[in-house]
């Protein structure tokens, strides 16, 4: 089948791409759009490094056809924190970080970093649905994201702390 012109909404921006129907969203993001923040590894929905949000839900982009992503709101790590979402403003040219991103930095939750974009997006999707989770719930929500470096502990701590910060941010707003 020839390539088809489709429009994908990624991080609130429209991208017009030409894709063969069997292309995955992961491949289109990374190869066609240069959005390499979403990572590639097992291509089997086993590791979660390719996690993106589709209409706010965490999804493995490696098994999601680009064709099927039309008309959906896709969020990648690059689109996580536009300034002005009730977050602390960044200084200078650096963009503001989402509380999750800041918490991951503050808790030492980042080591090699390869799992981190997927991990942060999974956490965001979960916190949007469950703003005050327990540790057990956070672990369960992140069970589809493998990390080999951290043993998960500081990641879990960061997510719990981010939840607190986001709740405080909301009540302060």
């Amino acid at each position, binding site marked *: 089948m020839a390539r088809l012109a489709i429009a994908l909404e990624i991080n609130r921006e429209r991208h017009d791409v030409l894709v063969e129907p069997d292309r995955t969203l992961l491949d289109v993001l990374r190869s066609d759009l240069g959005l390499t923040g979403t990572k590639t590894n097992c291509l089997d929905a086993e590791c979660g490094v390719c996690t993106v949000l589709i209409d706010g839900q965490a999804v493995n982009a490696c098994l999601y056809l680009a064709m099927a992503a039309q008309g959906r709101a896709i969020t990648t790590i690059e689109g996580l924190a536009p300034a002005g979402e009730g977050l602390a403003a960044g200084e200078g040219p650096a963009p503001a970080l989402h509380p999750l991103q800041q918490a991951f930095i503050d808790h*030492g939750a980042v080591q090699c970093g390869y799992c981190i974009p997927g991990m942060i997006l999974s956490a965001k999707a979960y916190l949007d649905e469950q703003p005050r989770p327990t540790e057990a719930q956070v672990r369960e929500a992140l069970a589809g994201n493998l990390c*080999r470096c951290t043993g998960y*502990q500081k990641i879990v701590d960061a997510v719990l702390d981010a939840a607190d910060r986001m709740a405080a941010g909301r009540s302060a707003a």
Partner: protein
Amino acid sequence: MSETGRVVGRSLPRLDAPGKVTGRAVYAADFALPGMLHGRVFRSSQPHARLLRLDTTRAAAIPGVRAIVSATDVPDVRYGAAVKDEPVFAPDVVRYIGQPVAAVAAVTLQAADAAVAAIEAVYEPLPPVLDVASALAPGAPLVHEAWRSYTAIPILQRDGNVCNRARIVVGDVERGWAEADHVFEHRFTTAMVHQGYTEPRAAVAAWDSSGQVTVWSNTQLPFDVQATLADILAIAPSRIRVIVPGIGGGFGGKLRIGVEHFAALLARKSGRPVKVMTTSEEELTAAYPRQGTVIELKTGVTRDGRLTARQGRIYFDTGAFAGSGPGVASVATMVLAGPYRVANLHLEGYAVYTNKTNCGSYRAPSGPQSNFAVESQMDIIADALGIDPLELRLRNIVHEGDEGPTGQVLNAVGLEECLRRAADAIGWADRRPRPGRGKGLAIGWWTTTGGSSGVYVKINPDGTVALNTGAVEIGTAALTGAAQVLAEALGVDLADITVVSADTFSTPFDFGAQGSRTAFAVGNACRAAAAELSRKLLAQAAAQLGCPEQELALRDKHVVGRGGRVSLADLARQSQQAGGGMIAHGTFIAPGTAYDTKRVEGHVYPAFHSPSFHAHAVDLSVDEETGEVTIHRYVVAQDVGFALNPTYIEGQIEGGVAQGLGQTLSEEIVYRDGRVLNANLTDYKMPTTLDVPRIESILVEHPGRVGPFGAKGVGEPPNVEPPAAVANAIAAAAGLRITSLPITAEKIVRAAQTGGR
């Protein structure tokens, strides 16, 4: 205890975090060049066979294919860390399922895959050697008929299917058995396991018009890859530039050449940049996993629990090529001795060829396997003698000034403190609270690998500092730690430092991210560079301030003295205008550790430098009906010498234990008849968030003499003790002694059913 410095010793955020949390950091797997082709490797389908014919004609005709390379495109060169036995492409014999035979570059990955599927190879099967026992049996087929002709490290003891036998002999074990009241003999086995980094191995190669090649890769050892590529490409190393843009975990699996040579060869032949990246299946069949082992351990002990002798043999199934086997077999003998006072030792490590993937180095290579045997047996002994396992260890552990197994003098020995604090933290007094629940201990020691590191440190005209190092930041935050050392020495903040790293062309040499050495060695190189910079800065400032250098000091981004101060920024600006800039070169190599050469044979690693000591304690429950293990608490006490950055050291401990628990309970690469049965992440089972407990880290500090501020290597040790600690706890909880890894639910249930108590 050590004083916390202004910068060192503090849990400051790592320098590369913002790029990583925003997805901006570029890893080798992300790297791309315009016009780039995609490469795939055609691999052997036979464990052992003669390659009679290779036909790439149909493959070459596939639309989009731009280059195919095989053995005829490469000089007849063999490479390898210890034995140069490995070809780029099998020229005549294939020795494992997955061995590279050819490679293809095409415009799309799909076309490359189609081309690989269209390559025809005709094999004549040869009898495969499927395990260590078969390899060592009399009359066994030789995995390498021409083994004698290979170039190898001269001291290796090679013979047929044994590519090294390393040995430590101390005293006389026969005398030790005679002294003993009891002699215990046990056999242990461990499985092959994969490092499990989440980023596949990847490389992009591009040749320029002058015949130089640049390779972007996620290697841990860019200079080693550069040297290997020089042999393979038959060009001088200086015409090869290896750059590591970013690496998503390595754990030793990305030390040696992985796909860089395929990318470079295909790029040269096609005239275009080429990217090659491994798949999960290739990682689990043709990478550098941790060797499976068989361990025979015999220990003599008096009735009051004093060790009199130990005899050990550990066989490493190192696969089709020696890889890191010979070195790993050497290190194993050090771990088999354990951090114990034992007067009589006869310890051997064998690296054995088989027709499986060649194995490499995985975080604390040989550590978990050897330690599993030693520490499991210690508990068996304790149980048999009716002595508390903690007490048995306390009676035999090494202390300050004792000798290691090869005669090195041990100093900064924090072992007793680690053992007592871990036992205390886990509540050792109540170690069998009820049936099905128990606590276990394991202790060990490990090295901080040597090798040299160089840095350039430059002070910018705005007062910030550029740290230029050949080291690779694999995720441990070692380079942040080194930058903290630098900041401390220069009187600046960590945030003032920018790190540039891992480019063989423009960064100084570094021995690489291996052996827990990076913060240690780069930190010390930074101290050397800072000392030189300090001299220059003080000299320049002294002239300006009209004051002797001895009265000046670096503080708060200035040179300060009684008569005033001048900023580093000003000094750097002046130097840049008039003197070529404020820059210094610092180097470091750890002094050798003296040992008794008569005690070792075939030994590539006869001393543990700046050794660390550690104790793990675990509290768990066993469901004897399902075999499920639930870990309630896990405590680690690790002698880190000096904690350069406590948060990231905790991160190493937490991650290392998690990885160790995977090896202990769920991970194994399963071979049958030379074929991997579980070459995917569905069935190669790494721990998830629900499988790893919270880990409590106790950072013990007995500062060493060599490391920056007394720091010792911290990255590898946490991988060493989990198997034994968990096995000992399972024995305490359920009376079941499992002597093979992984300790699966099935093994536990089977032991419970057959009364393996």
